[in-house]
């Protein structure tokens, strides 16, 4: 975020807002990895946002069939 010429890194609320924007734009599946808090937020169409602790294995579900991501 540019504020009076100072560049700041994106906060978690900002990143969550971006994920929500993606979902509203037609994204079917998205993962927000939060290594600082060892958590992953799973954004999936027509589902509530799921919060999962790391380490875990994320599934591509019906969107990326057969895809698994170890985080």
């Amino acid at each position: 975020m540019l504020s009076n010429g100072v560049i700041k890194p994106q906060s978690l609320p900002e990143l969550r807002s971006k994920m929500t924007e993606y979902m509203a734009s037609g994204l079917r599946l998205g993962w927000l990895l939060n290594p600082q808090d060892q958590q992953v937020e799973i954004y999936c169409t027509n589902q509530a946002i799921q919060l999962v602790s790391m380490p875990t294995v994320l599934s591509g579900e019906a969107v990326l069939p057969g895809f698994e991501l170890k985080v």
Partner: protein
Amino acid sequence: MMERTAQRELIDVSPVGGEGSSREADLIGDLIIWNRQTQLGKVFSSQGAFKLPFCSTRAADAAWVRQERWDALTPEQRAGLPPHLS
């Protein structure tokens, strides 16, 4: 790397340090391996920005678009900032 929000603000989304960058590379690598086996779509790196319907331009650390969605774009759309995500 800059993004533009729907409110027309410019945001710096410059990448992280070594650990974050390595994590990102691993993720894209896994996605590429899976996509080469299944041939279902196209993988995009963190340098790829997408135009979203709310007039914002956004990039993800890794993105994947179904092949039929990509095929539906014109050559001009593919060369520029592709609209929408899948």
